[in-house]
């Protein structure tokens, strides 16, 4: 199994979750309002403007689904910023 991890602008989180759902993963987990630094500078998360918050999401899924997901999320991230990585895990339950 693969674990696909995504960090993206909180405002665009739903686009990522929609991809997860469209690829029919069995589930996903989301941590809202993480902070970070990247090409677009420091994102310290402020609730006021809502424009500087990241969210972190991951899903554990079969290798082929992971492949399709990273392709689609990758395209999103190229446009909107963020990061997407994939790694090997063993699923136990």
């Amino acid at each position: 199994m693969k674990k696909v991890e995504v960090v993206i602008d909180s405002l665009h989180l739903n686009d990522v979750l929609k991809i997860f759902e469209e690829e029919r993963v069995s589930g996903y987990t989301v941590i809202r309002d993480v902070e970070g630094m990247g090409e677009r500078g420091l994102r310290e998360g402020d609730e006021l403007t809502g424009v500087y918050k990241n969210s972190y999401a991951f899903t554990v899924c079969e290798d082929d689904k992971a492949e399709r997901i990273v392709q689609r999320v990758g395209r999103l991230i190229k446009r909107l910023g963020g990061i997407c990585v994939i790694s090997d895990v063993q699923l136990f339950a």
Partner: protein
Amino acid sequence: MSIDLILSNVLNPPVLFFFAGMLAVFLKSDLEIPQPIAKLFSLYLLISIGLHGGYELSKSGITPYIIKVLGFAMFMAIFVPIYTFFILRLKLDVYNAVAVAATYGSISAVTFLTALSFLQQLKVPSGGYVVAAMTLMESPAIIIGLVLLSIFAKNRENSHTDWKEVLRESFLNTSVYLLLVGLIVGYVTGENGWKGVEPVFGNLFKGFLTFFLLDMGIIAAKRIRELRKVGAFLLVFAIVVPVINAVIAAFLTHTLGIQKGDAFLLTVLSASASYIAVPAAMRLSVPEANPSIYVPMSLALTFPFNISVGIPLYYYLVNMLWG
């Protein structure tokens, strides 16, 4: 403009706390306010403004004069984003021009509040319907911005402006929604409703505004370093355009025979720029625009300018015209 006017504005706990928040960042104090608190206060303030305005409306009723005020508000909300867009295009690409124009076409509720508290200190009356005017001024700039975009960025990649989504962001974003809910509930429950919630949404108002502005000072100061990348043109824009908008608004309201207190508030609204509803909408609908331009301009420059120097300046102007 007498120095007294500036002082009586600045020597006010809310304004002083805003600058104390900024100072904390500059001095690298470890002062931090948890994010849910900022959200709590901003929700509180929106509900308060709405309820109070609605209650006042329930007393005054809806008169032709009020329709005039609302009409003027609508006009400014459409006029400003259009004229500024063409100025901005001189230096910016279409995406960023749209985002900045929308930002300055919309309004800032906290600037409004600070002006209201300034007015109350001077004991100048104003009407609750101005809150309705403010609510009307929140959204049009977003729509106008996206219309401009669809006209001037025709060969846009992924150019699928989802208009249903846009309308939702414009008219159902947190700010507009809560102001509307407050207005309606305040209006329908009237005297009785207001009496029950006044201890929270009336009396605590200035204290919570003070607390909230401390937080806004911190947030604004963190954005200041981004101003370096913004360029002289936009720095000047962030100060001069609000003043121009204020001058236009002051003269127009005077011509229209709007009362002094109301006119002052409408002037401040016209001069203010959004840092909540519009940035979020722009980030979603125009991801090509750079938030590090439009957010710091509005939050770290125009907002502090307005609540410190702008408000007494605009009042001075209005005072001169109304005599």
